[in-house]
C-alpha cells in the first residue's frame, strides 16, 4: 500500500528530558521519524521540551514546540496547529502516556485528530496489566501468576495467593519506577504503598517471582498488511529479577535451539496481532524456565523502546525510521533496505557477530542509594560492543564503559601475580554476596570467583547466569592464566608470542589488560603487537551476514583476516564521541558530535564517527559518512586512525572522554584539530592554569592545593571558611563539597577522599551568595564571538549542570557583562582556542571571578544554540576545519529578545533514601527548556517541562534558614497577594508575622505530630520553600524534601529558586501560558 494522502500534517511527541529509563534513544528514534516523515512530504509538528536533542533542531520539523510534554500543552498545540494525526510511539512512555490522556479526555476527537502508530485500545491492552493478562490468556500464553491492587488492603489480599518473593510493578510508569522485589512481608508493605503511589492510576501488579529464569526480548515490526517480522532477539545475561535496562544483554539469543526460538517468534507475532499494534515496532519480553523451557510473557511495549534502539544499532535495521513510514501506510515490502539497496525492509536481519550491551551506573553520585539491581531501573546509560565472538564482544564492552576498566581486573587479588593467595573468610563472604545479589560489579567478582577456583556449578548456583555465559568468562580467565604463564615469551617476541597474542586479541583482551598481565606499559604492548603483525581488521554491519553487498560503511573491529574498511582518499575528519551516557556527560555532547559531522559534510569533508553508545544519533549509520562502533580508548581509536589516516581528529565535542585521550593521541602523531592538547592541558592543570590567570591578571577565588589533611587545614584557615573542596581531575563535580568549618573538613578529608601526594585536594574559597555565569564562546584564533552568556538562577555552589539558567542574563549590570566578555576574549586568545570554549564565572558585588575554563564544547551548547538560533557546534566544527568565523559571517553576538530558561531534571525518585538537596556534585540526568518573552512564563514552562507541578493557588509551606528570611519575604508576599495561604515553621513564621504576613504555624518533624510531613502527605501543601544550613538542619528537613518528592509537590531549596517560582506563578495566574514554535522566536 502506498503512503496515505488523507493526512498531511503529523504531530510527533518527543520524550522530554533525559531521565533514568528514558534517555537519548528517543532522540535517536524521534530524529529518524522526523526525517522519514519530512522526506515523505508530510508537514511535521514536534513537541519536545528537551533542548539537547537533535530532533528539536529547527530544521528537523516544520514547527518545533520546545514546550512541556503535558496533556494541557499538547491540547493547546493541537488546537493551534490542527494536525491530521498524532504519532505517539517514538517518544517513549512519556509520549505514549501524554497521547493516551488527550485521547481519553476527548481532545483528539474534538479536533478530528487520528492516533497513528498505535491506537488507544492497543495501547491500553498492552499497558494495562489486567487487560494484558486477559489478552495473553486468549492466545494461550502464560504470564506469571499475579494480582492487581489499588490500595493497601487489596495488596495484602493479593499477596496471600502469590507468596514470596513477589514482584511489585506499578502500572503506567517508566523504567519500572516504584517497583521492586519483596522477599518478606515488611518489605512488601513498604513497596506496595510506594508502588501504588508511583502509578498514575494508583495501581500495582503483584506478580509471581520468576527470578533466576532466563530472560529474552524480541523486537517485532508489523505493517498495515499484517506482515510481521522479528528484527532482533536479545538474551539477558542477568537472569530475571534485574530490569532489562540494568542487565547485560547479548544479541542474538545464544542459548536457545531453533525449536525454542521459534516458540518465542510465534508468540511475539501472536501478541502483536492480539494486542492490535497496527504498525510499527514493539518489544516483547519473555522469561524461560531453564530447567524445562516453560515460557512466560513478561510484558510488551507497543512502541519503539530502548531495546529497539539497541536492536537497530545491533543489526543495522533502522526500526524507528521504518516505524514512522509504516505509520503513514507503507508496508514493509515497499521500503528499501538502505544498507543493501537491492532488498527490502520486509525481512529478518541476520547477524554474523555478537553484540553485548553493558549498562553504565553512577551510584558514586548517590552514596545513600541501594546499589542492588532489581526490577527498577537504576542505570543512566549503556555501552554496546560488537565482536565476532561473545568473548571479544564482552571484553570490548567492558572497556567501552569508560570506568577505567580494560578487562576483568581483579577486585580481590593482585592479578599481575601468577598465583593467588587463598581468599580470606571475609572476602569469601563478600564474594558470595556479590555473586548472589545482582550489582553492577558482579561480572568482575565473578571473574574473581573463577580465580579463587570456585566451580562452575557453585557459581551458577549463586548467580543463575546461564552456564554458556559463565563458561565464556571462565575461558577468558583461562587465557589470562596462559598469558601470565607465558610472560617469558615477551622478551623473545617470536612467532610463538605472536600466536598467543593473536589468540588473546581474538578473546578481546585490550593492550592495557595485557600490559597489566605482563607488567609492561600499554605502549610496549602496542609496539610488540604491531611488530608481530597482530592488527585488527574492520568488518561491516550489514543486516544480512554478507549475503548481499553492503553500501553502508558501518564498522566494528575484530582480529580476523579480511578487512572491509576500504578507506577513501578524501579529505576526512574523525569525530570522537562521548561514550555511554552518565551524569555529567550525556546527550548534549552527542548533539555536538552530530552537529560537527553535519557541518563538515556541508563543507565536503568526509566525516567519520567513533562512538560506542547505542542510544545516540551519532551512532546512526547515516549521520556520518562512516561509522566505527568502537570503544573510545587509545588503542581502539589509534587502530582506526591508522587505517583511515584522517586530516584531523576532533576531541573537543565528546565531553571529557575524548579530551582525556588528546595528549596521548597527539604523542602518537595523530593530528588533533581545533584547540591544541597543550592548551587543553593549560586549562586543566591547576598550576599551569594559575600561571595563565596571573599572566592575564584575572581574579579567582582564593585557593590552594592540599596533599595531606594538615595542609588542607592550613589552607582553609588562610582563605577562610566556607571553602569548596574536591579531588583534582574530576568530572561533574565528583566528591565535591562545600565545607563550612573544621569538623566538616576533617570528616571530608577522612571519609570522602584520602588526600595524598598523587591525589591532591583542591580547596577554593566558596563565594557565598554569588551569581554564577556560564559562557559559551567561539574562537578561531583571530576573532572571539560569545555564543551565549547565561545567568544561573541558583547561586554559586550548586553544580552548573544542576542549576537552572537564563539566557540572556536577567539581573546583571551591562558593565559586568562587558567585563565577562572582555575576560572571555582574553582567555580564548591566550589559550589559542580553535572552536568552542566554556567558562564559568562567579559575580559578587560587581566583581567577576573566574571559576573554571573548559576549552571544549560544553553541556550548554545545545541550549544556547536553541536559544539564539546559532548552531554553535556547527560553526565551531567549520572553524576547526579552517573556515574562519569571518568567512562564516559569524562576527556578532546574538542577544535574543525572548527569554530562555534551562532547568535540570533529577533522578531522586528512583533512589529511595537519597536527599534531594543540591550541591557542587552534579546529580541531574537531563534538562528541559522553557521559552517565552518574559522571565516568569519562561521559568514556569521550564518547571512544567521538568515535571514540577507549580500551583496557581493553595498553600505554601515556608521554612528557611535565618540569613534567607528577609529574601523570601517579597516572594511570599506576592503569593499571598495571589491568594495563597502560608504555613511555616516557628522561626520562619515569627519572622513573617513580624513583617505582617498572615501565617499558620506547623510543627517541624521533631516537634511532634501532626508535622509538616503529615500535612504534605494529606495533600494540604501545594508548594514548599525550604532552605537549610548546617548538617543538623539538613538531616531534620530531609524527610520534608523526600515527602514532597514522593507526593510530587513543587519545592524550591534556594532563595533564587523561590523568587523565580513566585514570578512564574504570578505569570500563570495572569494568563494561560501560550505555546509558540521555535521557528517563530528565531
Amino acid at each position: 500500500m502506498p503512503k496515505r494522502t488523507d493526512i498531511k500534517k503529523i504531530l510527533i511527541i518527543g520524550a522530554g528530558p533525559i531521565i533514568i529509563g528514558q534517555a537519548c534513544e528517543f532522540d535517536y528514534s524521534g530524529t529518524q521519524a522526523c526525517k522519514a516523515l519530512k522526506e515523505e512530504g508530510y508537514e511535521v509538528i514536534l513537541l519536545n521540551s528537551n533542548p539537547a536533542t537533535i530532533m528539536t533542531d529547527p530544521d528537523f520539523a516544520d514547527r518545533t514546540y520546545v514546550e512541556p510534554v503535558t496533556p494541557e500543552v499538547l491540547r493547546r498545540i493541537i488546537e493551534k496547529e490542527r494536525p491530521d494525526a498524532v504519532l505517539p510511539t517514538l517518544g517513549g512512555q512519556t509520549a505514549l502516556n501524554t497521547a493516551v490522556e488527550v485521547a481519553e479526555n476527548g481532545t483528539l476527537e474534538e479536533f478530528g485528530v487520528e492516533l497513528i502508530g498505535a491506537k488507544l485500545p492497543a495501547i491500553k491492552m498492552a499497558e494495562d496489566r489486567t487487560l494484558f493478562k486477559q489478552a495473553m490468556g486468549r492466545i494461550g500464553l502464560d504470564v506469571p501468576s499475579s494480582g492487581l491492587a489499588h490500595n493497601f488492603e487489596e495488596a495484602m489480599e493479593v499477596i496471600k495467593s502469590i507468596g514470596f518473593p513477589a514482584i511489585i510493578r506499578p502500572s503506567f510508569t517508566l523504567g519500572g519506577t516504584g517497583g521492586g522485589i519483596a522477599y518478606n512481608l515488611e518489605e512488601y508493605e513498604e513497596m506496595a504503598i510506594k508502588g501504588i503511589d508511583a502509578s498514575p492510576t494508583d495501581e500495582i501488579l503483584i506478580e509471581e517471582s520468576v527470578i533466576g529464569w532466563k530472560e529474552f526480548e524480541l523486537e517485532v515490526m508489523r505493517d498495515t498488511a499484517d506482515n510481521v517480522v522479528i528484527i532482533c532477539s536479545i538474551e539477558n545475561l542477568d537472569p530475571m529479577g534485574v530490569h532489562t535496562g540494568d542487565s547485560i544483554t547479548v544479541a542474538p539469543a545464544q542459548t536457545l535451539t531453533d525449536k525454542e526460538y521459534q516458540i518465542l517468534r510465534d508468540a511475539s507475532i501472536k501478541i502483536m496481532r492480539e494486542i492490535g499494534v497496527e504498525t510499527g515496532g514493539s518489544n516483547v519480553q519473555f522469561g524461560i524456565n531453564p530447567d524445562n523451557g516453560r515460557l512466560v510473557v513478561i510484558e510488551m511495549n507497543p512502541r519503539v523502546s530502548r531495546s529497539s534502539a539497541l536492536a537497530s544499532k545491533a543489526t543495522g535495521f533502522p526500526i524507528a525510521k521504518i516505524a514512522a513510514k509504516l505509520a503513514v501506510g507503507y508496508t514493509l515490502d515497499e521500503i528499501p533496505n538502505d544498507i543493501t539497496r537491492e532488498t527490502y525492509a520486509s525481512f529478518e536481519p541476520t547477524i554474523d557477530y555478537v553484540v553485548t550491551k553493558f549498562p553504565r551506573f553512577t551510584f558514586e553520585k548517590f552514596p545513600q542509594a541501594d546499589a542492588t539491581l532489581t526490577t527498577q531501573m537504576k542505570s543512566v546509560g549503556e555501552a554496546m560492543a560488537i565482536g565476532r565472538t561473545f568473548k571479544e564482544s564482552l571484553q570490548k564492552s567492558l572497556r567501552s564503559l569508560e570506568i577505567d576498566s580494560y578487562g576483568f581486573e581483579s577486585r580481590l587479588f593482585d592479578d599481575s601475580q601468577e598465583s593467588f593467595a587463598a581468599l580470606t573468610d571475609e572476602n569469601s563472604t563478600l564474594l558470595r554476596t556479590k555473586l548472589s545479589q545482582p550489582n553492577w560489579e558482579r561480572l568482575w567478582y565473578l571473574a574473581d570467583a573463577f580465580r579463587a577456583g570456585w566451580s562452575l556449578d557453585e557459581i551458577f548456583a549463586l548467580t543463575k547466569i546461564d552456564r554458556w555465559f559463565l563458561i565464556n568468562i571462565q575461558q577468558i580467565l583461562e587465557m589470562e592464566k596462559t598469558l601470565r604463564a607465558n610472560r617469558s615469551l615477551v622478551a623473545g617476541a617470536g612467532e610463538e608470542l605472536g600466536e598467543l597474542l593473536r589468540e588473546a586479541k581474538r578473546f578481546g583482551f585490550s593492550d592495557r589488560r595485557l600490559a597489566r598481565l605482563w607488567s609492561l606499559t600499554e605502549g610496549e604492548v602496542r609496539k610488540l603487537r604491531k611488530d608481530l603483525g597482530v592488527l585488527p581488521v574492520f568488518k561491516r554491519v550489514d543486516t544480512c551476514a554478507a549475503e548481499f553487498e553492503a553500501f553502508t560503511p558501518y564498522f566494528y573491529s575484530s582480529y580476523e583476516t579480511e578487512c572491509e574498511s576500504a578507506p577513501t582518499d578524501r579529505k576526512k575528519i574523525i569525530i570522537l564521541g562521548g561514550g555511554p551516557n552518565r551524569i555529567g556527560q550525556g546527550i548534549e555532547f552527542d548533539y555536538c558530535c552530530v552537529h560537527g559531522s553535519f557541518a563538515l559534510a556541508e563543507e565536503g569533508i568526509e566525516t567519520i564517527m567513533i562512538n560506542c553508545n547505542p542510544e545516540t544519533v551519532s551512532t546512526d549509520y547515516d549521520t556520518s559518512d562512516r561509522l566505527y562502533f568502537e570503544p573510545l580508548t587509545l588503542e581502539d581509536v589509534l587502530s582506526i586512525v591508522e587505517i583511515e589516516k584522517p586530516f584531523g581528529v576532533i576531541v573537543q565535542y565528546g565531553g571529557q572522554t575524548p579530551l582525556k585521550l588528546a595528549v596521548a593521541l597527539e604523542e602518537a602523531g595523530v593530528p588533533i584539530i581545533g584547540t591544541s592538547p597543550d592548551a587543553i592541558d593549560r586549562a586543566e592543570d591547576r598550576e599551569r592554569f594559575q600561571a595563565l590567570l596571573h599572566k592575564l591578571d584575572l581574579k579567582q577565588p582564593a585557593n590552594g592545593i592540599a596533599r595531606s589533611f594538615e595542609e588542607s587545614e592550613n589552607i582553609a584557615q588562610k582563605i577562610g571558611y566556607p571553602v569548596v573542596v574536591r579531588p583534582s581531575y574530576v568530572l561533574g563535580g565528583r566528591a565535591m563539597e562545600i565545607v563550612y568549618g573544621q569538623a566538616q573538613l576533617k570528616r571530608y578529608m577522612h571519609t570522602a577522599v584520602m588526600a595524598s601526594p598523587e591525589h591532591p585536594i583542591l580547596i577554593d574559597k566558596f563565594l557565598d551568595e554569588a551569581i554564577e555565569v556560564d559562557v559559551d564562546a567561539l574562537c578561531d584564533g583571530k576573532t572571539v564571538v560569545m555564543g551565549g552568556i547565561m545567568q544561573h538562577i541558583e547561586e554559586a555552589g550548586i553544580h552548573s549542570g544542576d542549576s537552572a539558567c537564563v539566557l540572556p542574563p536577567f539581573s546583571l549590570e551591562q558593565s559586568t557583562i562587558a567585563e565577562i566578555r572582555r575576560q572571555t576574549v582574553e582567555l580564548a586568545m591566550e589559550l589559542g582556542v580553535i572552536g568552542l570554549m566554556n567558562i564559568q564565572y562567579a559575580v559578587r558585588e560587581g566583581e567577576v571571578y573566574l571559576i573554571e575554563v573548559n576549552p571544549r564544547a560544553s553541556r550548554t551548547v545545545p541550549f544556547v544554540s536553541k536559544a539564539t538560533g546559532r548552531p554553535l557546534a556547527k560553526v565551531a566544527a567549520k572553524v576547526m576545519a579552517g573556515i574562519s568565523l569571518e568567512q562564516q559571517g559569524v562576527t556578532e553576538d546574538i542577544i535574543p529578545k525572548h527569554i530562555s530558561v534551562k532547568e535540570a531534571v533529577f533522578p531522586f525518585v528512583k533512589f529511595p533514601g537519597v536527599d534531594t538537596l543540591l550541591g557542587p556534585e552534579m546529580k541531574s540526568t537531563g534538562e528541559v527548556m522553557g521559552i517565552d518573552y518574559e522571565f516568569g512564563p519562561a521559568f514556569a514552562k521550564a518547571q512544567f517541562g521538568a515535571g514540577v507541578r507549580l500551583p496557581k493557588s493553595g498553600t505554601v509551606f515556608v521554612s528557611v534558614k535565618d540569613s534567607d528570611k528577609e529574601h523570601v519575604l517579597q516572594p511570599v508576599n506576592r503569593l499571598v497577594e495571589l491568594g495563597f495561604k502560608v504555613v511555616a515553621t516557628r522561626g520562619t513564621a515569627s519572622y513573617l508575622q513580624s513583617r505582617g504576613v498572615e501565617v499558620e504555624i506547623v510543627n517541624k518533624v521533631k516537634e511532634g505530630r501532626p508535622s509538616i510531613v503529615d500535612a504534605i502527605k494529606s495533600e494540604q501543601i501545594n508548594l514548599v520553600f525550604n532552605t537549610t544550613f548546617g548538617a543538623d538542619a539538613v538531616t531534620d528537613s530531609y524527610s520534608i524534601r523526600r515527602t514532597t518528592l514522593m507526593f510530587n509537590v513543587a519545592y524550591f531549596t534556594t532563595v533564587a529558586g523561590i523568587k523565580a517560582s513566585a514570578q512564574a506563578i504570578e505569570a500563570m495566574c495572569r494568563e494561560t501560558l501560550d505555546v509558540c514554535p521555535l521557528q517563530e522566536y528565531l
Partner: protein
Amino acid sequence: MKKAILALADGTVFHGKSFGATGEVTGEVVFNTSMSGYQEILTDPSYCGEIVTMTYPQIGNTGINAEDVESGKPHLSAFVVREAWDMPSNWRSEMSLGSYLEQNNIIGLCDIDTRALVRHIRTHGAQVGIISTLDADTQSLVEKARKTPGLKGQDTVQKVTCSEPYHWTEGVWNLETGYEKTNPEQARFRVVAYDFGIKRNILRHLASLGCHVTVVPATTTAQQVLALNPDGVFLSNGPGDPEPLHYAQENIRKLLGKKPIFGICLGHQLLALALGGKTYKLKFGHRGGNQPVRQLSGRVEITSQNHGFAVAADSMEDSALLTHINLNDNTVEGLEHKSLPAFSVQYHPEASPGPHDARYLFARFIELMENFRASQQG
C-alpha cells in the same frame, strides 16, 4: 585441536582448526545465514555433497539432542564455523556438537574468518572445496578440489533416498510433550511421499494433519505409486541438481492430473521440469531462515530456504501460474498448475529450522486432496 585447511578450487585457502572428525573431504562450499538450528541443518539430507559454512559465528551453544533431527544422520560433507562450542548449555542437550560430528565421521573446521569465506562465495560463486587435516600442502589441496566435480549434472539423490518404502506416523513437536504420536488408523488421507532426501518435519506436518504417509524411494515408478491408491503425492526436498533426475521427472509427468501433487524445494524443481520448464544453478543459492517471499495475493512470509538451483520463470509461462516470488531477487518461489491439481514451493514451509510463516501450505495440500476426492466422487 588439529590444524585444518580449507582450499577452494579457485585457489583461495583458509587455515583453521578441526573439530569433530579428522581426515579429508571435498564438497561444494556454501553458506547458511540461520542464527539457530544447526542441528536440523546438519541432518537435512539436502546438504549432501556440500561443505556448509554457518555465517553466525557461535555454533554449538545448545549442543545436540535426540529430538531436533531431520533425518537419521548428518548428510553434509563438512561443517565450517567461526567458533565451535563444546560445552553446551540447554536443558534438552545430550551431547556436544564436536562429539556428534566425530561419531558421524563429519569433519568440522573452525577458527577461520567465515565472513571472509562467505564474501568470497558471494562474489565468486559456490564452488568445490576441500578440507583436510592430513595434507598441509595447499597447492596439492587446490589441485584435488579442482579435480572434484561440482553438484551440477550429478544425481545426488541416489545417495540419500531410502532403499525401501516405509510408513510415517510421528507428528509435529511441542515443548511439553515432544513429538505427537498420530494414529494411522484415523488418517483421513493416504499420501505417498517421494523421498529425494526428505526432511522429517515435512512428514510430521502431513501426519499431524491426518495423513497416512508412505515414504517411497526416489526411483519408485508412477504405476507403483498409483497402485498404493493415494489421495495425494508429495515430492520432497533433496540435494543437488534436479536436471539429471529424468526418472523422477518422467514419473511426475505420469502422475500429473491423476493425483494431487505438492512439491517442496527439489520436488518443486522436478515438478517444473516435468511441466517442461527449465532450471539453472544460482550463483551461491539461498540458504537461511530469513528469505522474504511474497505471495502474489499480497502478504510477505519469512521463509526457510536451502537451494542452489532455481526454476527459470520464463520457462513456466505456458504451464503454470507463478504464486510466490522472492522479494530479494525476484526468483521463482511458488508455482501452481494452470488446470491440474499440482502446486509447489521452492522454500520450506516445514521450516525446522526457521520461521513458521508458511505452514498454511500443508493445509492447502489437504484442501487440494479433499477437493480432488470430492470431484472424483461427484
